Structure formats: structure tokens, C-alpha cells
């Protein structure tokens, strides 16, 4: 349990980082040469990615950048087009995020429904020390609130610790921490998961095969996540580790605590990202000041060209297919912000010397992506998984929570398009999800059951 805890510690930490959406303000690397040197010298520098971002189109970024650097901004003239592009690509961004979130949820729900292991109560994490097997309702409620307080304070401490490390440039330490946690996720949790799935389906597997499978899975995962790899593979690995993490939470968090924690963490997310002294906001701002991308391992990015990464991989960029589509737009945009484009280009080029660079398009691709923290994936999946596990075996509740979360994500992305800065992705979705869970479970279920038993249709 101790090792588990230690590793979970590092797991908790990244969890906090992953909970926000940000507008991508790509920190431009000053020049091509610098970018190259940076990549040569330290992985740390070159591998940082932006935390979360939704890129609306180079126009917006260009506008922001130019105004930031004092260049006379043609923003007013560009505003209209920015907005139009924003809306146009808004839908694409939404779809780009719907697919991975849906996939993650599907994996979690499928596992919960089929593998008994994840719904059995087998002890609790050390982060939730109070048991819920109490005789009275009041006591149980109190215990769950106390559990939540403990969990949230652990998360706050970890986040602050990470921000401090980042501020004082202890990059190696953070590196090592993230590598350790992803190691644990990729090997230990996968081993447990595979074992349970095989048990459920009564499939025998000998140890050598198991070793080879897990070794390959884990090694490729580490490479994809921390170094280079095909985009889709990185995205797939990110989804898988988010699902694994969510499953662990679903198993080890006691019932009422899980719901209270979900609520509390969305409030925390709101405050941490929006308050001026919030740790996540400070992290984002520090990264932007230093023109470094934030830890790539903690963010899912749908359009980044970064395949080199730290810890939790931000699911990297789209393939080159999108580039050709955006080529026309990109070309147009690029004319307006050549310097910005160049810097982006260099940034993209440096960590990916082997990737066939299609210069302008690639940059635009990067700009077009949306980034979502991995913690968001995890907590969405926890909500849907818990709904699947504990809603009296009802699929309607699961479906309702799923739709609610997706709509929340839509709204958040809409707000992101409006505000163009880092936004917490958890609050709206989790609030909708919680409302729909409790209302569907208690109100809709008896109604639908009665209707179904009489075979009435509404």
C-alpha cells in the first residue's frame, strides 16, 4: 500500500494540473537558431508544452501577440474575421475534443459494466481516511465531507509544490516525478487491469506472454508520451492512461465521498484557474512569461505538432491531413504575422527534425488545436463511471450524464472562444453531470421504468 500511495502521490499531482482549458497563446521562440539550440541542450525546455489552449486561429493569437509586443495592432480590423474564424473552427474544436472524451468514457463504462473488480469495495486510498460504513446518515455525510477536505488539501499542496518547483526551475525534479508516475500508470495499473479483464473473461495467459505484452505496451507508451511518436498513438495512450486512472478512482473512492469530491474539485478548479493567485493560473502565466509550453505530459492536445513531451503526454497534434485543409487559411493568416509564424515554425521544427515540415501549414495546425487537461478527462470519466457503477444498473443515468458532460464541454469551449484565455473545464460539465445524475437516478428512472412496464411511449 505504501508504494501504491507514493506513486499515487505523484498521480495526484498531475491530476491537478490537468484541469483546465486554456486559450493557446503560443509562446513564440525568438528565432529558429535559438529553437534549435534549445532542443539540443535540454529536453526540459523544448519539451514543455502549452498547458491547455484552444487555438482559434492564428489571427487571434497573432492579434494577442502583436498587441503584447507593442506592434500597432490591426486588431480592430481583424476582429471580425477573428470572430468568424473562431466560430467556424469552434465546431471543429468541439468535435476534436468530443471524440477522445467519448472514447475515454466508453472504455471506462465498458470496463465497469463487465469487470467486477472495479465495483468491489476493497479498501480505500490513504487520501480518504474516513470510512463510510457508519451506522447513521449524518455520520456518513460528515465522513465524506472530511474525506473531501483531506483529498482537496492534498491536491492543493501538490499543486502548489509543483508550481514552486516550476518557478524555481527545478525542471529535472518535475521531469523525474512525471516520468515515475507515468511509469507506474503504464506498467502497474495496466498489469492489474489486464489481469482483471482476463479473469472476467476466463482467458488464461502465461506469464511470459503477459510480460512481453505489458513490456511492449509500457515501453512504447513511455516513448510516445515522453519522446516522439505518432500523433494518434500518443492520443490513444493518453486516453488509456486517463481511463486507467479514472478506474482507480472509481474503485477506491467511497460512494458519497466520490460525489462530494467531484463537486469540490470543480469548485477548486474554478478558483485555481481564475483567481489571480490561483496556483494553476500562476503556472500558466509563468509558462507564458518564459515562453515555454507547460508540461506536455499533462495535457491532451488535439492539434499540436509536439511529439516530444514530458510526463503525461498532451495528446499531440493532428496528422498532416488537416494541414492541407487549413492551408488556404494559413497562407492568408501567415501573411499577416510572419514573425509569429516563423517563431512557431522554429518551435515546431526543433523537436521534430524527422517530421516532414510543411512550414506554414504545420504552424497553423498547431494553432488550431484545442488542449484539454488530462485531469478533466479523468474526472469526467469518474463521473460517468460512477454513474454506471452505482445507478442501480441503469443505463439511462449513464447516458444522461454522458450527454450532460458533453454539453458542458461545448459550453466551456464556447466560453473559451469568447474569453480567449485559460478556463477551467471542470465546473460546467461536472455541475451538469451531477445534476443530471441525481435527477435521472431519482426522478426519471421510476418514470421510465413505469412507462416501460406498461409499454407506453412518450
Amino acid at each position: 500500500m505504501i508504494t501504491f500511495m507514493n506513486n499515487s502521490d505523484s498521480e495526484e499531482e498531475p491530476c491537478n494540473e490537468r484541469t483546465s482549458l486554456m486559450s493557446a497563446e503560443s509562446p513564440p521562440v525568438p528565432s529558429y537558431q535559438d529553437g534549435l539550440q534549445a532542443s539540443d541542450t535540454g529536453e526540459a525546455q523544448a519539451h514543455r508544452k502549452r498547458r491547455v489552449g484552444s487555438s482559434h486561429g492564428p489571427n487571434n493569437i497573432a492579434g494577442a501577440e502583436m498587441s503584447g509586443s507593442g506592434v500597432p495592432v490591426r486588431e480592430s480590423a481583424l476582429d471580425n474575421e477573428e470572430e468568424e474564424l473562431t466560430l467556424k473552427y469552434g465546431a471543429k474544436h468541439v468535435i476534436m475534443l468530443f471524440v477522445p472524451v467519448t472514447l475515454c468514457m466508453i472504455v471506462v463504462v465498458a470496463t465497469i459494466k463487465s469487470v467486477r473488480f472495479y465495483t468491489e469495495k476493497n479498501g480505500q486510498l490513504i487520501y480518504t481516511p474516513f470510512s463510510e460504513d457508519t451506522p447513521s446518515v449524518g455520520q456518513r455525510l460528515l465522513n465524506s465531507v472530511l474525506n473531501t477536505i483531506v483529498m482537496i488539501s492534498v491536491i492543493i499542496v501538490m499543486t502548489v509544490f509543483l508550481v514552486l518547483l516550476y518557478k524555481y526551475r527545478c525542471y529535472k525534479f518535475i521531469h523525474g516525478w512525471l516520468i515515475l508516475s507515468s511509469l507506474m500508470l503504464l506498467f502497474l495499473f495496466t498489469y492489474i487491469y489486464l489481469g482483471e479483464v482476463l479473469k472476467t473473461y476466463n482467458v488464461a495467459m502465461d506469464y511470459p506472454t503477459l510480460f512481453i505484452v505489458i513490456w511492449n505496451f509500457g515501453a512504447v507508451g513511455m516513448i510516445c508520451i515522453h519522446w516522439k511518436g505518432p500523433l494518434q498513438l500518443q492520443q490513444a495512450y493518453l486516453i488509456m492512461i486517463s481511463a486507467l486512472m479514472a478506474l482507480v478512482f472509481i474503485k477506491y473512492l467511497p460512494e458519497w465521498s466520490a460525489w462530494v469530491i467531484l463537486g469540490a474539485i470543480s469548485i477548486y478548479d474554478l478558483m485555481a484557474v481564475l483567481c489571480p493567485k490561483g496556483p494553476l493560473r500562476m503556472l500558466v502565466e509563468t509558462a507564458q512569461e518564459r515562453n515555454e509550453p507547460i508540461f506536455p505530459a499533462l495535457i491532451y492536445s488535439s492539434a499540436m505538432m509536439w511529439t516530444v513531451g514530458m510526463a503525461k503526454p498532451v495528446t499531440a497534434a493532428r496528422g498532416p491531413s488537416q494541414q492541407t485543409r487549413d492551408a488556404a487559411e494559413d497562407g492568408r493568416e501567415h501573411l499577416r504575422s510572419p514573425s509569429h509564424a516563423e517563431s512557431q515554425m522554429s518551435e515546431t521544427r526543433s523537436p521534430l527534425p524527422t517530421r516532414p515540415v510543411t512550414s506554414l501549414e504545420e504552424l497553423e495546425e498547431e494553432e488550431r488545436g484545442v488542449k484539454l487537461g488530462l485531469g478533466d478527462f479523468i474526472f469526467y470519466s469518474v463521473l460517468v463511471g460512477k454513474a454506471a457503477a452505482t445507478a442501480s444498473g441503469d443505463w439511462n443515468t449513464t447516458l444522461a450524464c454522458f450527454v450532460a458532460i458533453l454539453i458542458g464541454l461545448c459550453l466551456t469551449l464556447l466560453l473559451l472562444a469568447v474569453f480567449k484565455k485559460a478556463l477551467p473545464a471542470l465546473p460546467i460539465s461536472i455541475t451538469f453531470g451531477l445534476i443530471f445524475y441525481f435527477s435521472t437516478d431519482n426522478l426519471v428512472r421510476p418514470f421510465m421504468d413505469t412507462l416501460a412496464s406498461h409499454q407506453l411511449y412518450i
Partner: protein
Amino acid sequence: AFFWLVSLLLSSLIWFIAVKASDPQDERLQKGLLIFGVMFSVLLQEAFRFLYYKLLRKAIEGLVALSEDGCSPISIQQMAYVAGVGFGLMSGAFSMINLLADALGPGTVGIHGDSQLYFLTSAFMTMVLIFLHTFWGILFFHGCEHRRWWEIAAVVIMHLTVSGLSFCNPLYVGSLVPSYLLMAAAATWAYLLSGGSAQNLRRFLLCKC
């Protein structure tokens, strides 16, 4: 889909309150409450369809204002279709998914004297409802667009009729057959409204072969 879900939520809230406030032993009252719940739910669904129409209208206006050539990338008819499909899918999913999950498990259909065709008829009924929602979406939005209130009223009445017919179950001939007829009528109506005609149809079919 989300709007349908919210309407379902509200209607089940009303029904739930009504049930809790009433005597659970009185069969007739419960049945009456159920009927009331169903009708109310239908009305709420249509109300939410209207609200959704209003929302989409605003969205289209926004898109038109922002677009370069003065027309939005997605037309109101497409939105009507998508809205209908969303409503239909959500309604179908909620009706069928528990059934499907149970169908995977062991059991005998109708062992207590109920109809043995339960699964089959449920599947057909759900299918007809999904189609109907799609067509109703098109009709409804068209009616709202062109201010033809009788179209909207027709949609609401059709919906009420279909739900009411489902009260005939397990006398399936009373519920399935009229529903399918209504669906055919709605289909032709929606097709004609969307700009189709007999000639288009013939050309389409002939071109294919």
C-alpha cells in the same frame, strides 16, 4: 438531445411529485397519473423543441452576421433535421437501452402472461418514434419559420396521438399500425416541405438504376 433530456427531466419531476403526493395503492389513480404524466411530457417535449428552435434561430442570425457572404454555413432546414434526429435518438435511446441490456441476460419473454412479442414490438415502436421525431423536427421548424401555426399544432397533435395510441399496448395492432401510417404521412409531408417532389423522387430512383 440535451433539450429532450431536460424536458424529460422536468416532466418526470412533475410526475414524481404527483405520485408521491398521491395514494400508491389506488390503481386507477396511478394509471390516471401515468396518463397525465405522459401527456404532460409530450407537451413539454414540444415546448422544448420550440425553445430549441428559438436558440437555433439566434445562432443562425449570429452566423449570418459574421459570415462573409451573408448566408450561414448551415441552413435552418439542416438544423431542423439535426434537431429532430437528436430528439429522436435521445428518446429512442432512453426507451430501448435498458431493454437491450436486459435482453442480453437470461430470461423468458412474457413468462407471466404478458405478450411474447415485447422486445420486437418495443423495437418497432422505438424505431417509428425516432423517425417521427425527425420528421416532426422538420415540420415544426418549418411551421415556426413560416409562421404556420397549424403545422405546429399538427405536430403536437400527432405526438399526442402516437403517445396515446401506445396506451393500447399490448394490443399492438392498435398502436403500431396507426403509428406507422402517421409516420408515412409525416414523411411525405416533410419531404414535400423540404423541396422534394414526385419528380425528384423518380429521378433519384431512376438515376440509381
